């Protein structure tokens, strides 16, 4: 048994054995006759071996004197077969029976395969099948619910919109918190680059979307610091190891796979709007030409149309065309019922019909093959998707070539090259006057954005959204916000991404005790963007064209020396030492052209004012690491590792000292497979292991150049109108950055303690894996706020402290398994909390993202990223010791002279009004198989996690939400609360226009009333698949239909709460006119030849 890991290791390097003298072949199946794919066959006591292919067949050249073959398969008992007893060397058919699932080998940091039993920390593998059948085109989305300890949030339903993933919550206060993504041993770029403010602009991708999910062989989630210690700083936020598919080394064997899928996306849910009250103010009707923004007008049922410009209620002359017809509605303008032409006023649904069925089509083809000394796999794919928003588009083409050769015994060289081209057409969203939903949801029920056309027509019908004089046709007479149909035609963003990444890896094994490995990875991304704003855009009235070009290059190189073996019958030893050099360079060049000369030609040559700038972000790290694993009787393993890092971001360019950039940290982990000491042959208990680990990780500053203070070319303004930028009137200008550099920065340090248990019963039919951890981060580097009377806004300081705790639980079970039918089920439970213990001296909170009325902040004593904003005044606010919302009674404004008499009073202190972090996450994944059919479903339960419903907040001001239609009709009643003398409130009020436009309504000082529970239960995946039987030509494949996000339940009052205005950034928990999410149905055919 204990030699098995050695044997497996040997296989890795034995593919190219050249001493073969006779051929043998056969098939490996399980006891029911199903072929076992990937079972290992080795000549016992040698390095000669192979593994079975998709039919379970294998072929091998063996020395003439070989007598015994060993067959092994993960989860099955191994079998030694004496081949001298076989008459035919071409039919060595073997069946393996399920055994104790103890000898699993898992891929750990740096791609090193280790016996799972030896691991003193948690690693969870996600199978390629589980990823692919999810139907997700973004590998990050495909991970939802498939492992414990992870949290995935899709930012919006826009095609090409990114997703944020966290492993064990957040680690860094202001830096990146998403895990390191490692593909085939080297780091890959999963960044999200923004061209506009995080609360506005368009959706942005996370770059892992460039990877074709069909190319993924497996994903491993390395959760804790002990698991990621060898990756150093970069791994401090967790690591996701992706292994891509390779060619098979079966002789004369070509495999072809083709798959094609078609997906249909629809909007899930939108916001509940009222269609009872017309555009206007104080119950009076205001027609669109007045520019009125609100729906506080009269009952729609009290209005009718008139086409007579001399009508006493007719709008001003400017509201009519020269021929006297009304500009804004073909039916005419609205007048009180009984005074017009008798045609009752219409109401229009400007929301649901606007969205279309998004259709996507994906085709992938792969060819793989190889022989004893060389393998290859070539894959191409094409994905094209139209969004639910007309004109939104995402196209992705990928080509990947993986090849390997084994020119000498012990030497293997593998490489891969991946090229991806992604094209996006994007639509403006969020908090900007061109934001699609912003203009759409605010439009009063009495205004038809499509001008009488159907939505399909209006998309291509200019007269729906624009007058002949190029002014916009919108509900505010050309002011306010872009008409959604205008936006999707005249304010589009285009993105052209060309990316190539890959690696070359060479391994040379001298003997068991000495092997060398070198792995060189590169990742080059070019992202060219163009954002257009036609003349009369509400964002850029003069029109604008903006070009952004991002080039991101990263190189990641590893040199590793490793080896191991048995020291004695009882002791084993494995070691590894190595070095890693990493370089990152991001180069942004932006040219902004403002003021288009004439409409219809949105090109930089047609602009009258140009400005340009360049941003280069670069850093390098150098790491030296070592790891030693000692094992005793396959029962107790102790692993110790250490790493010394040098990070250029800690260097002071004015006074560079290498020692200032270096830092050291250790880790240790212990695994105790206590079941080895028990007799587990009988009885339900089959395996048990305890894990314990301790690890430290250091990290440099989140951004380069934090060690020096610089001058910048400022943008001037105060947030109400757009800022202006230099050059101005031919002058350049510089001022000191409001962020002070700090040459004395030291690395931040987090220390993690982790304990876990892995229990299996009934020979692995039931498995339970539980982990608890605590991570303490000290000296966290943050941009501590300064009062601006110091002359600056922030300074980089080593001052933060944060404590994270979490529980992770994974239960695997196969409750039913028979010849025809099986049911596999897995539950992943994740609970984590990240408490900010300390910021900087005298600083109680730190801004991350969001708005004035509600933003995400780090607040001392609160969960990471608390939603912070205006609150109602509580009667004990004066004595309340911290920035949380006091637990007292709401105080009612009882000043009869106040316009807000009878409303809630406003606390002058902003408070932590919400926590966007979920209480826990459960993913329940099931597969039911009957013969060749399988049914899978994944339930995703996220409990708690607040969202600030800024959409509802704003719509309450506009009188547009159903809430405001209901409350303006309610009989006056006192709001729950107390008066200034402490007695119960007795001032009856109706929550009508005065209420919702006051400090406690939309755009007011208070944000707390619209903080809502963003938790959900959803049917994340549902799929039905049929597997084709293997035949002469068709070797396999499947046809299936799957659904994503088909159903969810949430208390959130708005769009699907799985949304994030700021995309993949650290500031989560905002909904401000976000793009709604989608549900998808995908039909997929896959065939193998």
């Amino acid at each position, binding site marked *: 048994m204990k030699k098995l890991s050695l044997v497996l290791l040997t296989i890795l390097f034995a593919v190219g054995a050249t001493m073969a003298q006779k051929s043998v072949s056969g098939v490996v199946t399980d006891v029911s006759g199903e072929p076992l794919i990937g079972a290992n066959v080795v000549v016992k006591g040698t390095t000669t071996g192979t593994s079975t292919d998709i039919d379970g067949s294998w072929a091998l050249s063996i020395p003439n004197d070989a007598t015994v073959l060993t067959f092994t398969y993960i989860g099955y008992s191994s079998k030694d077969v004496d081949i001298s007893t076989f008459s035919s060397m071409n039919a060595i058919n073997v069946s393996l029976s399920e055994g104790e699932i103890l000898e699993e080998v898992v891929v750990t940091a740096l791609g090193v395969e280790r016996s799972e039993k030896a691991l003193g920390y948690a690693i969870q593998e996600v199978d390629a099948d589980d990823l692919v059948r999810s139907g997700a085109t973004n590998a990050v989305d495909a991970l939802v619910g498939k492992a414990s300890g992870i949290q995935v949030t899709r930012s919006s339903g826009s095609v090409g919109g990114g997703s944020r993933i966290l492993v064990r919550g957040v680690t860094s206060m202001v830096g990146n918190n998403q895990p390191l993504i490692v593909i085939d041993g080297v780091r890959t770029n999963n960044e999200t680059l923004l061209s506009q403010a995080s609360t506005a602009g368009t959706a942005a991708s996370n770059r892992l979307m460039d990877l074709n999910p069909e190319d993924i062989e497996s994903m491993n989630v390395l959760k804790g610091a002990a698991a990621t210690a060898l990756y150093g700083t970069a791994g401090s936020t967790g690591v996701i190891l992706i292994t891509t598919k390779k060619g098979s080394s079966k002789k004369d064997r070509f495999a072809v796979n083709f798959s094609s899928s078609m997906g249909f996306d629809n909007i899930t849910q939108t916001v509940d709007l009222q269609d009872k009250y017309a555009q206007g103010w104080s119950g009076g009707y205001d027609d669109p030409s007045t*520019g009125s*923004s609100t729906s506080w007008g009269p009952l729609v049922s009290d209005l009718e149309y008139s086409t007579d410009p001399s009508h006493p209620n007719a709008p001003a002359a400017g509201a009519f065309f020269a021929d006297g017809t009304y500009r804004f509605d073909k039916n005419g303008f609205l007048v009180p019922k009984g005074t017009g032409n008798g045609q009752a006023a219409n109401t229009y649904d400007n929301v649901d019909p606007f969205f279309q069925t998004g259709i996507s089509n994906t085709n992938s083809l792969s060819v793989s093959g190889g022989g004893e000394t060389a393998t290859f796999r070539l894959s191409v794919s094409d994905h094209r998707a139209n969004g639910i928003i007309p004109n939104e588009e995402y196209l992705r083409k990928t080509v990947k070539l993986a090849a390997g050769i084994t020119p000498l015994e012990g030497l293997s060289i593998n490489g891969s090259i991946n090229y991806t081209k992604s094209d996006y057409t994007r639509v403006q969203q969020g908090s900007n*006057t061109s934001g699609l939903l912003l203009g759409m949801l605010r439009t009063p029920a009495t205004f038809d954005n499509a001008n009488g056309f159907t939505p399909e027509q209006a998309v291509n019908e200019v007269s729906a959204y624009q007058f002949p004089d190029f002014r916009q046709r919108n509900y*505010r007479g050309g*002011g*306010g916000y872009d008409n959604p149909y205008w936006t999707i035609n005249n304010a589009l963003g285009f993105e052209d991404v060309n990316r190539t990444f890959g690696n070359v890896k060479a391994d040379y094994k001298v003997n068991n005790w000495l092997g060398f490995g070198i792995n060189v990875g590169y990742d080059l991304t070019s992202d060219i963007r163009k954002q257009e704003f036609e003349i009369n855009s509400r964002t850029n009235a003069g029109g604008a064209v903006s070009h952004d070009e991002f080039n991101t290059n990263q190189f990641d190189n590893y040199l590793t020396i490793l080896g191991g073996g048995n020291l004695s019958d009882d002791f084993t030893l494995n070691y590894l030492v190595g070095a890693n*050099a990493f370089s990152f360079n991001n180069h942004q060049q932006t040219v902004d052209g*403002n*003021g288009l000369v004439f409409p219809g030609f949105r090109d930089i040559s047609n602009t009258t*004012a140009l400005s340009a700038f360049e941003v*280069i972000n670069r850093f*390098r790290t*150098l790491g030296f690491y070592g790891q030693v694993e000692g094992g005793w009787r396959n029962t107790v393993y102790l692993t110790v590792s250490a790493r010394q890092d*040098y*990070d*250029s971001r*800690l260097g002071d*360019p004015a006074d560079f000292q*290498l020692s200032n950039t270096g830092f050291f940290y250790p880790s240790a982990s212990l695994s105790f497979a206590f079941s080895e000491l028990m007799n587990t042959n009988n009885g339900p208990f089959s395996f048990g292991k305890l894990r314990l680990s301790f690890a430290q990780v250091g990290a440099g500053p989140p951004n*380069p*150049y934090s060690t*020096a*203070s*610089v*001058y*910048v070319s400022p943008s001037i*303004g*105060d*947030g*109400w*109108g757009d800022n*202006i*930028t230099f050059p*101005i009137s031919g*002058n*350049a*200008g510089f*001022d*000191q950055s409001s962020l002070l550099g700090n040459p004395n920065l030291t690395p931040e340090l987090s220390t993690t303690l982790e304990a876990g248990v892995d229990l299996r019963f009934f020979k692995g039919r039931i498995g339970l894996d539980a982990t608890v951890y605590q991570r303490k981060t000290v000296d966290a580097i943050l941009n501590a*706020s*300064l*009062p*601006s*009377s*110091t*002359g600056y*806004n922030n300074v980089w300081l080593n001052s933060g402290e944060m404590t994270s705790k979490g529980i992770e639980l994974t239960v695997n079970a196969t409750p039913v398994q028979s010849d025809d039918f099986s049911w596999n089920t897995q539950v992943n439970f994740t609970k984590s909390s990240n408490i900010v213990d300390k910021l900087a001296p*005298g*600083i*109680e*909170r730190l801004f991350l993202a969001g708005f004035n009325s509600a933003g995400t902040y780090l607040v001392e004593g609160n969960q990471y990223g608390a939603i912070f904003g*205006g609150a109602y005044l509580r009667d004990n606010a004066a004595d309340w010791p911290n920035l949380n919302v006091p637990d007292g009674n709401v105080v009612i404004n009882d000043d009869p*002279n*106040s*316009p807000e008499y009878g409303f809630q009073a406003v606390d*002058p202190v902003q408070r932590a009004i919400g926590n966007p972090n979920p209480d826990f996450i459960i993913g329940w994944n099931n597969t039911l198989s009957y013969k060749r059919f399988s049914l899978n479903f994944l339930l995703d339960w996220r409990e708690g996690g607040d969202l600030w419903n800024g959409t509802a907040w704003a719509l309450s001001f506009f009188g547009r939400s159903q809430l405001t239609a209901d409350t303006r009709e309610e009989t006056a009643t006192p709001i729950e609360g107390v008066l200034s003398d402490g007695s119960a409130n007795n001032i009856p009020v109706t929550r009508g226009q005065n209420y919702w*436009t*006051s400090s406690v309504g*939309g755009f*007011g000082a208070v944000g707390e009333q619209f903080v809502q529970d963003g938790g959900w239960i959803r049917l994340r995946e549902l799929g039905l698949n049929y597997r084709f039987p293997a035949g002469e030509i068709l070797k396999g494949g499947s046809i299936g239909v799957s659904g994503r996000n088909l159903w969810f339940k949430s208390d959130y009052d708005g769009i699907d709460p799985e949304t994030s205005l700021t995309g993949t950034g650290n500031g989560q928990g905002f909904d401000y006119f976000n793009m709604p999410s989608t549900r998808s149905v995908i039909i997929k055919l896959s065939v193998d030849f």
Partner: protein
Amino acid sequence: MKLYFKLFALVLFAGYLSSCENFVGGDINADPNNPIAVPVSAQLPAIQIAMVDLTGGAFSRFNCMLTQQVEGVARQWSSFNQYTGLTPNRFDAAWDNTYENVLNELQTAKANSMADGNNHTLAVCYVMEAYTLMQATDVWDDIPYSEAFKGIEVTSPQYDSQADIYGVINSRLNDAISLFAGPQGPVGPASGDVLYGGDITAWTNAATAIRARAKLHFKDYSGAASDAAAFSSSADNLAFNYPDANAAGQWFRFNRDRTGDLEFHPTMRALMNSTQDTNRLNVMDQTFITDHPYLVADFNQELVTYREMQFIIAEASARGANDQAGYDAYMNGIKASFTRLGLGDAEFNEYITQTGVDPGVGNLTLEGVMTQKYVAMFLQPETYSDWRRTGFPAITPTSGNAVPVRWDYSSGEYLFNASSPAEGSVNVFTDKVGWNQ
């Protein structure tokens, strides 16, 4: 053998250290796009335009909303209009821009000018500092100065009394005037000065005009009148002309990007209608959109004007001699306002025949002067000081019993400056600023 091995290891180690140093060291961590030092001439345009934008932005909007030249009618601005929405965070932008983008920059610019012996550039910095400090202390009363601008060294600067701030203002202005009279030093301020193009006479007059404003606040009317004479025509104005829609004036940008939030105020409309001020109303009282005839993209944002100075002379006269000079100044001020709005002599001559406009020599009243100044100073933040000093024109609070007489401090100060007053301790309705007590 052992020795060789050691030597070999040592050589390897040395080689590794130096390659380490090459790999992560050098200029890798130096920001290639942002310099660590710039000449004052490259800083001046940024400071000056930031200063101008501050006056035309936050100060103009809040001050002129409180004096009811403009009315907040939509979204956040309707709650500001009712005073209820004027929470400390609303003053963050004004405070931050004042301290970070103007005053703090001036400290470096002053130090560099002094080090280089560029006395005229130093004096220009003094004038800008005095102007900005006055604009700030006039709404915030006590503010940090003596301990401010020290970055991480003093993270909670003390608040200096308004009297001390005015002491700084006066000494800066006096020092500037005497420095302007002396040699310029190696390099003058011509390069980078977007306000006067390095015209030292113009700067001297501007310093004197700003001093007139200071003297007026402290009721030194004759001193103010004598300094006010420094400006002899609107050509002397301290002002910046925004170039075009791509770098447009604050009000244009506000009206473009926040259309409908602020509009012309009925109080001002009624006041102007009472003297049949139709021509000026036609220009001012239009919907606040980008087509507004006065609030244009290439706006001339005035900080200190000839007409303001003329009204200072007129006010001093009305309070004292009530002489021909005061009367002339009053009429000059009105006329300059007409010219500023693009109106000609005909409209001016028609207007002064209206009842209550031309009182005749010797008959200036404080109310008459201040009312005309209020109209002539449309959207000039100084209107708020004038109203607080004199109570003219009479203003009815939009809610409650009182109009705020100062601004609250910024939320950033309350949160991050331990030396700031306690949050909630400032009563904006009763806590008058020093010179107003």
